[in-house]
């Protein structure tokens, strides 16, 4: 890994799904620098989850290139350069919390003692000490997602990919998880690419928000979020927070207008925010 390589570098990337002949992503260019927290936001079907999976080499692009830490996405996956978190925690029912977190470490060939030490650190990081022997079904949704984050971070990947990780949680839990995620991001110095439906969440978390338009998925615009770090619950009351939300919303509307100018004023994205 060269020190000056971008964490993620996407050039002229397109994805066409053969089934249904859908152009999911159209000529995407995006660089993510190490240490950044970048959100991908856009309407359903804009290909943001597809883009995340292409970065993770779980789907192949039709055209274009993705470099992760200066390597091909494929090589980066084999080198375990990223951890991934989905909307559902996707924990293994038959494993305890400890063994779920240790799964990637087992696969990476860590010995027992090293795994145990590492898992203990992870449990502290996500504040789940005391739940070692619990099985996933004995935990609340928020706790399950914390286990899932601990698992993704356990092998210290430089990159964290998150696909609407808090989408299934209620508003209060989601806000608490947002605060925890920022703390973890600052403690681990990792790079985060975060897919979300929520404008407020994207603004609160990110250093940059990439706004996408639907069918075909394109980058409609990028909002630099210059809210001070570290962020706190008070950040949400900052006047600039509201300004950035307006900025992202305008970009979303602009992206929407690219496809369907006649529906310009439909408050599609505003409605689900409830701000």
């Amino acid at each position, binding site marked *: 890994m060269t020190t000056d390589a971008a964490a993620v570098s996407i050039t002229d990337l397109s994805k066409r799904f053969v089934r249904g002949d859908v152009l999911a992503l159209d000529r995407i260019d995006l660089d993510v620098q190490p240490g950044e927290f970048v959100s991908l936001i856009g309407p359903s079907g804009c290909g943001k989850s597809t883009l995340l*999976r292409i970065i*993770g*080499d*779980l789907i192949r692009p039709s055209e274009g290139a993705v470099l992760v830490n200066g390597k091909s996405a494929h090589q980066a*996956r*084999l*080198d*375990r350069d*990223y*951890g*991934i978190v*989905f909307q*559902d925690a*996707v924990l*293994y*029912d*038959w494993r305890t919390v400890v063994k779920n977190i240790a*799964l*990637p470490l*087992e*696969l*990476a060939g860590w010995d027992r003692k090293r795994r145990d030490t590492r898992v203990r650190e992870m449990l502290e990081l996500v504040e789940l000490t005391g*739940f070692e022997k*619990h*099985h*996933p*079904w*004995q*935990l*609340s*949704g*928020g*706790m399950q997602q914390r286990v899932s984050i601990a698992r993704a971070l356990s092998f210290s990947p430089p990159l964290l990919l998150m696909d609407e990780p808090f989408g*299934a*949680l*209620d508003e*209060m*839990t989601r806000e608490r998880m947002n605060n925890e995620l920022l703390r973890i991001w600052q403690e681990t110095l990792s790079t985060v690419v975060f897919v979300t439906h929520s404008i407020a969440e994207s603004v609160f978390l990110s250093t940059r928000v990439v706004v996408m338009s639907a069918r075909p998925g394109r980058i409609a615009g990028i909002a630099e979020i210059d809210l001070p770090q570290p962020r706190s619950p008070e950040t949400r009351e900052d006047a600039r927070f509201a300004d950035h939300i307006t900025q992202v919303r305008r970009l979303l509307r602009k992206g929407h207008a690219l496809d369907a100018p006649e529906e310009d004023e439909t408050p599609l994205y505003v409605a689900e925010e409830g701000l």
Partner: protein
Amino acid sequence: MSSAAVARPIVEPRSVGLLPALRNAGLSLLVLAVGCVLWEAYKWLGERLELTRPFPVNGRTMPHVYDMVGQLFEPSRRNGPLLIDVLLDAAAFTAKEAAAGFLLGAAVGFAIAVVLSESKLLQRGFLPYIVASQTIPILAIAPMVVIWVSPKLPESLAGWGAVAVISAYLTFFPVTINTLRGLQSADPRAVELMRSYAANRWRILWKLRIPASFPFLFTALKIAAPAAVVGAIIGELPSSIQDGLAGAILNFNQYYITSPESLWATNIIAAALGILFFVVVALAERLLVRRAPENVA
């Protein structure tokens, strides 16, 4: 995800204690007792009303429950051992065949499922024949199995080894079909997760697909365990094996007119053996499979 707002652990006490187990056993015994009472009530009514349909009710068609059980503690023949001792010996012999057949069938069935799950081509090619294998009556292939298998077996397996193979033939099928389903039941995102850890297909199989298949596997094993007992009994018939339950069944069939209770008593022992096999598998499942309470069968 409805419990997402709850920040404390929702710890369900697992019902593995002695008390719930006793309660369940008590419930089953109660059902058995009710069944016996209904049997006797129907017999009593049928005899008084002189029912002829669906069959005439008398001591031969429906012996008393207490006579069937009582027969177990009568001598099996004049000056011979008690019937229950004879039947328990026979059951032990059949159980040996059934256990060997069950283990063999489960292992082969599981292996077939793993191979088929890893190759869609093999699955499409072979699955119809695996299904077809179960449409062949076991009685039709049993003699061939005996001829093929018996000469090749070592002395210690002679005779009953072929029966175990016949029993395995009945066991493997539900195990293959259910395990195949179970191996393919893993959450697609869990597979993506494994790929994100650079796991190859064998690691995905070992760490994800096989553990995910366990609930399906045990469902199959619970079907297969009593089937293995039935398979062993049927396998004994054409093998001319007299030491097992099939020998007792054939024998008491001939004396049904004079002593129907003996055949009924034999059936009780055979059924008890099947239930014992089921219970052993169910206990193993409790020990080995950890899963969410809502998924527990």
